[in-house]
């Protein structure tokens, strides 16, 4: 079984937020108002944070895109009381909206702040996008018919694309990639099988001193970064 992972090259990233927008389009994640953004009640499956170091004139700003880290040892899975979030065989951590009771314990427990609570009923008429027909062969909630408020959402590595691609015998990582990887204009993101030494992510991880976020927490994220 593959172990899907992502590599983000911070040297190439320009902080254009194309990944954030592409993710919202692909997964029907609603857009929020500026007020909701300030209050942090808007849903972002992928966010780009700006980190500054130093003071003007000697200052450096780095843009860090942060999807879900899909940890090998995910704290959210450990704390979910309803088995609503679980780690798939291929290492993707997914959220089952139908089981989620909305206790928000996983938001508290996630060290990366990638989990978002759905605070309101979505305005379907505005954000409507025709849903793909439900695929009964995939056990799980995807693609879900409608959004419901009161559950926790997160990045899924676009596993609906991966599952569909595998069925059509396409190569994951080159032909089929998550929406954020596909949309990146700077080609700063790579997706593939971390267990396969020939895959593009394994090669990228080996090029420069790659790192993961908050290594000290022992979560073993599958999203690796290449330094600037």
């Amino acid at each position, binding site marked *: 079984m593959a172990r899907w992972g992502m590599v983000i090259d911070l040297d190439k990233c320009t902080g254009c937020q194309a990944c954030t927008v592409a993710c919202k389009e692909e997964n029907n994640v609603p857009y929020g108002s500026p007020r909701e*953004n*300030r*209050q*942090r*009640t808007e849903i972002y499956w992928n*966010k780009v*944070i*700006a*980190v*500054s*170091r130093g003071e003007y004139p000697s200052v450096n*700003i*780095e843009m*860090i895109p*942060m999807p879900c880290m899909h940890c090998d040892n995910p*704290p959210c*899975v*450990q*704390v*979910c*009381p*309803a*088995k609503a979030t679980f780690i798939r065989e291929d290492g993707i951590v997914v959220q089952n909206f139908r*089981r*989620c*009771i*909305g*206790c*928000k*314990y996983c*938001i*508290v*427990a*996630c*060290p*990366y*702040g990638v*989990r*978002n*609570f*759905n*605070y*309101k*009923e979505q305005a379907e008429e505005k954000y409507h996008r025709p849903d793909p027909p439900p695929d009964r062969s995939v056990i799980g909630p995807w693609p879900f018919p409608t959004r*419901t*408020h*009161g*559950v*926790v959402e997160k990045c899924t590595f676009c596993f609906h694309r991966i599952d569909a691609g595998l069925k059509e015998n396409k190569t994951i990582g080159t032909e089929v990639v998550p929406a954020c990887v596909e949309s990146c204009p700077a080609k700063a993101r790579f997706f593939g099988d971390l267990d396969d030494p020939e895959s593009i992510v394994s090669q990228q991880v080996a090029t420069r001193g790659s790192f993961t*976020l*908050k290594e000290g*927490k022992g979560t073993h994220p599958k999203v690796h970064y290449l330094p600037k």
Partner: protein
Amino acid sequence: MASDFVTIEGKSKNYRAAVIVFGILALIGLICFALSYVFGHQLFGSSNTIPWGMPIVLAIYLIGLSAGSLILSSLTYVFGKEEFRPIARMAVLLAIVLIFGAMISIAVDLGRPEKFWRLFMFFYLNNMTSMFAINGILYGGYFVISLVYMGIILANQKQASRFMGILAVCWAVLVHMGTGAIFGFVAARETWFSPIKPLEFLSAALASGLALLIVVTLLTLKLSGRSINKGMIASLANMLRMFIILLFILIVVDKLTHLYEPARDATIFMLAGEYAWIFWVLQIGLAVVLPLAILFHAKLNKTIKWITVASVSVVIGIFFERYYLVIPGSAYPLHFYPGKIEGVYGAVGTFQIMPAEMGLSLGILALLALLFLLALRYLEALPPKPMESPQPTAASPAPSASATQTTG
């Protein structure tokens, strides 16, 4: 012992007024809950930075009060201290009402409250590594055990009540330590992650439970025209003093260990940031300094009035301890990457006081007060009136009518 305890008559004006007022408040809470269910948690003040709001504050507070109150009932039923018998039944009754309120608070804080039952599918649909699921067992078991305990006490089974008392007390200790573990085991939040949290919660439970028991006892006895045993209250106040000191030691140790850690920004924010006044004034001031000053004062600690002041101060102070833990405790932003995170992800979270959330919280408290009043009316939980016991019942209607002035 069957004739020792009585119900209140519940025919006085004050009693009816109190029932009606609390009923209306509970109804308002229900409406707020319905609104939040329909429109989502945008009506609450929580956000992705501060995920938990007032209902969770209330939940852990009520669990603490309940566990503390139940543990104190054991003084009579397990250790056989007869001087506390007059309030022992009320302690158990209070514990049941409060744990019920805590479970309601948790249920209304869920995003999908209709899936509440999923928390009680032990081992089948539950992930048992989650502290929430383990606490589901603890809370559910606690509720059942305290109901059985109350039933046995009301039936005056002495041996059985001793046995159930031991079980209930052990379970109550577990319940509150489990609640502390919800916070203490979260490694992602520096201010919460601590092995001391369960013990800190337990000591807070004992202190606040005892303080609330003193307040409720005095209020109920006074308003229902019963005499107050000064010696009993004074010895309860002595005990309260001990629990507050224990709580204070654990708070200090908890903060100190976090200050010695390499990652101590969050704790410094908690102690000196914009919410620090809640800690220093409301938590330390009201829950520790003021009551200790009163209870160690040679004269003040003998008067009922000042003991009441100290107890009320502890009850309020420990509420703010919980508030401070849940809301400012999660406000400090997480450090995803070394450096200063710009924008909303690096900003300290804001918590808005929202009307629906406050109405809901008040409604839950009013519902509990209502349940307690109704329970006093229908269950024999109060000690008898001393002046009535030697006289035949139908002596004179006028004094008994004035004496049935009840809680308000």
